[in-house]
């Protein structure tokens, strides 16, 4: 019940936030929060470190962007197709990657993501370095015009809540319990009769689909899909967001994404703009060295010890 209250409070906060803050910025935070949550499903609950999640974010973005520009689909359909494209790519990558563990798993995902990056760099429809520019936001269900930033924000918020709920549901389902068992002791899970690779694969596909959903939404928010979203830097950034917020906590990645995006937002305009990567590196080092369980993990520990 306590959790319920916290969730409702956060929802209220999210609903009134655009009165104070710039809605596009908030929408960006939500897109990255969803991306980080999707990544966390894999790292935090299945113990799989994917270093190629940018491929799914980018695929969702490009597919949705391409459809919005060329096909005249309504935004919700374009987003669904983008998400399915990400899920399909995830299914193929997952099949290959789950055969390996640990560092090899990370390297396989990285290598595959680089292939995807190169494809988008060369494919004519992405316009290379220029990116897919001028993607129209369209009208939701053909009725609600999304060109207003505030309307767009509430649309993104709805998508985020749906994605967040799905992850929450997955983690607390029997399926999620098995994932956690695999994370803790894979051999024991096998000996109990679970087909470990099948579970990992399914988690990979769900995670990829949600990452693509985040990418699709982000493309609509910014009316642009670009190579930045498929570059391996993005795969690194999502790891950073998840670690800062708290691996394996439900809300951690949201907080982490908020923290990193806010930091980038405020640093990029100021005199410190040139040092943004150095500052982010320092944050990463401090986080790994002194509070390994992230912001939310640390708060929960504090609560356990004092209340």
């Amino acid at each position, binding site marked *: 019940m306590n959790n319920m209250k916290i969730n409702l409070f956060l929802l209220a906060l999210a609903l009134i936030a*655009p009165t104070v803050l710039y809605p*596009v*910025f908030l929408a960006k935070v939500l897109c990255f929060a969803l991306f980080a949550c999707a990544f966390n499903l894999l790292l935090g609950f299945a113990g799989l470190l994917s270093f190629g999640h940018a491929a799914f974010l980018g695929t969702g973005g490009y597919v949705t962007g391409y459809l919005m520009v060329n096909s005249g689909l309504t935004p919700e359909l374009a987003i669904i197709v983008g998400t399915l494209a990400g899920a399909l790519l995830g299914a193929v990558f997952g099949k290959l990657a789950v055969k390996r563990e640990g560092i090899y798993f990370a390297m396989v995902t990285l290598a595959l993501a680089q292939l995807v990056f190169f494809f988008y760099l060369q494919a004519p429809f992405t316009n*290379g*370095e*220029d*990116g897919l*520019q001028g993607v129209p936001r369209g009208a939701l269900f053909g009725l609600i015009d999304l060109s207003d930033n505030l309307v767009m924000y509430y649309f993104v918020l709805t998508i985020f809540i749906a994605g967040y709920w799905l992850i929450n549901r997955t983690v607390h389902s029997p399926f999620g319990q098995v994932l956690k068992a695999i994370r803790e002791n894979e051999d024991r899970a096998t000996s109990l009769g679970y087909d470990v690779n099948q579970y990992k694969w399914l988690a990979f596909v769900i995670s990829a689909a949600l990452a693509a959903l985040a990418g699709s939404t982000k493309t609509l928010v910014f009316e642009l899909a670009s190579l930045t979203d498929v570059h391996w830097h993005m795969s690194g950034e999502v790891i950073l967001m998840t670690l800062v917020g708290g691996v394996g906590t439900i809300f951690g990645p949201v907080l982490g994404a908020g923290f990193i995006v806010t930091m980038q937002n405020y640093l*990029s305009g100021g005199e410190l*703009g040139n040092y943004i990567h150095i500052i982010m590196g320092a944050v990463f080092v401090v986080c790994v060295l002194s509070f390994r369980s992230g912001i939310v993990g640390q708060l929960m520990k504090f609560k356990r010890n004092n209340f």
Partner: protein
Amino acid sequence: MKKTNKTVLSAVVSGVIAATMACGAQAATDGQVKLGVLADMGGTYADICGKGCVTATKMAIEDFGGNVLDKPIEIVSADSQLKPDIASAIARKWVEDQGVDAIGGLVSSAVSGAVSKVNADTKNITLISGSASNTFTTKTCNPYNVHWTYNVVALANGTVKPMVQAGKKKWFFITADYSFGHALEGMASKVINENGGEVLGHVRAPLGTTDFSSYILQAQASGADVVALANAGNDTVNALKAASEFGLTEQMDVAGLLVFTPNAQAMDPASAGGMRLTSGFYWDMDKETRDWSKRFEQRHGEIPSMIHAGVYSVTTHYLNAVKAAGTDESDVVMKKMKEMKPNDFFARNATLRPDGRMVHDMLYVEIKKQEERKDKNDIYKIIKVISGDEAYSPMQPQCNFS
């Protein structure tokens, strides 16, 4: 417990009401002129439009008196990192959230394209000074684009035409792999074909390539008379360095299609000396350009590139138009900008056409050899002045926004 939930719920509902009431973006036409400068602070193009572009804008504002419409002129700047997504996000934040009226600087055609799209939606003015692609006044033209300084058409007409006519018929391109490079290569190829030359091939290198050796080897094997570098900034410097290391500069002509003074300074005079190119501006042309350039050098530490001078010129013209129009409303200001003739040390015999293209005299210059140079800033000798009509292509009817 149920009661608490109800309280929270009512808070949620009132939040939604408050949110919908606060709807409505901040208008840019508030009589407060605010300029945004988007530049490349630490990348491939930092020397030609980085901090220098911010400095040039500040100089223009100071020389204008610092005030317009009885309010101080404000300036914000940011690093585009040469990425269209970052540029688009910054531009959106500026115009929608911070009341920016016009965005200038804008190096890299990919970045300018993204910003121009945002500004066309929100009806804000895009003052493009640093980008080369001609798309802003042709394929993607819109009533709020102003393209200053130069473009690929002027470069191709200025640099390529005389070389083909002088008998250099076979060409090979090393091209920057994004809209600017593609546009420049396309335009140059057109000029080559029209003048009886032929293009043997091309190779595309990503923006920010440091090792050009494989591209140079392909160029060497092509058997061309001229290897054209359809890139800019540090890319040109690095390509030329590799070309001279592989002995390419001794076998064939290398034509830098877009060379800025800071890059020409960084090139080895032994390999770059004698190269001819087209520029929109040279600091040492006459007294007016020297006076301004000296002031710029004092503040920036380096002599200005044509983009720096262009940024100053377009900012001044914009501010003059705002003053004359008596408002910062974009449509009115654009109309005034196109009516008034730009005239300063940079813009000679200049007009701003209804399509947003600023047509002015261009310079055909040669990079001086080591023995010809008096000091490190003595880089070009001017061969001739190319008139604006000769350099730029005529306006396309669908882009006539008069």
